[in-house]
């Protein structure tokens, strides 16, 4: 087993918290957009804390804390929040490109409105302080709601096969379309299936009819990590359908 949740209340519901650092909140909105499956999940989980969904001021004891956005260095509110989450949550999941790999916030040069106090940002996976506490990262900008649903199910069922790739991704603090070029195309593994192009939210990857490979436009990349995660040549611990 990878981890254990303690602190269950009488109803044995897994307590989730959503935390917002420096980001657009798109990941929390994606969570709310989990199609009709959301009510099913709410039978087993309780959203115990969220800046958007609950009125709570105090952070309660949590089983899983989902954190979106980057950590702004020197920003007192973030420092306090991260300390408190570390203390109160059993595990942390970095949700979305910003929290996981820096995402679009890698382009942040600080001193900008509306929050000029956020001058320098890093993904939470870069914080030594949270080493061991962050168990998984979820790529995407924002992650697809269906992905979040499947991830939550896997977390509740402790489906290690499903979770393993996202456990490994905790150690990547940067992602971009270059991953597709470096890890797949350069290594002679690309088959030209086009899946990475479909996974990319910004059209930074396009399919070249001439070479039958993806081409990468770095100017459009927001560093969300979806392309490499989606590519069938990157990791494959998923079941293959067998008929007959």
């Amino acid at each position, binding site marked *: 087993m990878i981890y254990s949740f303690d602190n269950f209340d009488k109803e044995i519901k897994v307590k989730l918290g959503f935390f917002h650092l420096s980001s657009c909140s798109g990941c929390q909105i994606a969570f709310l957009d989990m199609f009709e499956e959301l009510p099913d999940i709410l039978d087993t989980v309780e959203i115990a804390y969220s800046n958007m969904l609950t009125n709570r001021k105090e952070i309660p004891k949590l089983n899983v804390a989902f954190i979106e956005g980057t950590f702004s260095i020197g920003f007192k509110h973030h420092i306090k929040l991260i300390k408190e989450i570390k203390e109160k949550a059993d595990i942390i999941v970095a949700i979305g490109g910003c929290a996981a790999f820096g995402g679009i916030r890698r382009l942040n040069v600080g001193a900008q409105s509306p929050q000029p106090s956020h001058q320098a940002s890093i993904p939470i996976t870069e914080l030594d302080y949270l080493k061991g506490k962050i168990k998984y990262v979820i790529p995407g900008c924002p992650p*697809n709601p269906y992905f979040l649903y499947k991830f939550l199910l896997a977390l509740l069922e402790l489906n290690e096969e499903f979770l393993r790739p996202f456990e490994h991704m905790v150690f990547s603090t940067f992602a971009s379309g270059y991953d597709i070029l470096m890890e797949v195309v350069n290594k002679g593994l690309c088959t030209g*299936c*086009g899946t990475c192009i*479909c996974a990319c939210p910004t059209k930074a990857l396009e399919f070249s009819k001439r070479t039958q490979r*993806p081409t990468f436009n770095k100017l459009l990349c927001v560093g969300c990590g979806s392309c490499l*995660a*989606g590519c069938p*040549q990157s990791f494959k611990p998923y079941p293959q359908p067998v*008929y007959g």
Partner: protein
Amino acid sequence: MFGLYRQFTLGRYTKAFIIKASGEASSKNNLKALIKEAFRKDLIDGIIGTSLNKKEGFVSPVFIKCEKEVEKFEPFFFIHGGQNSLLKKITQKYSFEKLGVAGHSCVLDGINKMQYFGIGSNFTVTKFTLKIGIACIGAISLEGIKCLLKEKKVKNPGFNEIFLENNKIILKNKYEKFDFSAKEYYYYLNEGCKVCMNLSSRGSDITFVPSLRNGYSLVLVRSAKALKLFENPGFSVKKAEKSDIEEFESLAKNFLKKNIETILERAEFGIPSNKWDGNRFGRFTALWNNIYAENIEEEVF
């Protein structure tokens, strides 16, 4: 010694047929007949695939929305077209409930992976009702084909068909046929295809083999749904003979052996090969080096 058994080379299937469309005998027309039948039987209401644009000379992904549109479809089996790149666009633009896909195992893999994890756009909740796997000996690039033809001193080929016949790879234009041996073809194969271990699209509902023998192409039926295609079909269908199956099996084996050599060569240089996670690769090399085992393929691959 190492055995490549049929269950691994071809995958599990319940029935094997040979099919022939009416009209001009060609492998691409046989696939088109199969797709038309799927529309007619209401198994699909749209299908993605890749098609040769003869004017431009490119292979592009296409979304076919009805039986009528199948006419314009020009499957060019061994050049990839990135059909999965269409999924987001078509999900946003069109409404369909029974989507089909015609593609090689790696294309189906991309779909399987995205649907299993849910990575990507909203298409991941789309139901794929029919997966037509294209049996494959490895894809080649457009430039690769041009070089192959240059070696045969063909100047302006204007090719429009590619298929398998008598253990050879055939390129055809309006007037002529050019054949290539596995060795000639392998030289220009995509590197990614040189490590592929699923040439028969084992995870499909039905595998279409782009072969041609007396105008017939081989199909391997794997799911009950796909069997419906053969109930009073609009094409000619016969039970496949042993020799029909063995012909493709021997060609696939030939390519698989070459691919195993490539994988081992990569391993020696410390270059990863996609389809293997560490565990499986460990077991594979242990088997390769030590023992001759029966029926290990499900275990290992």
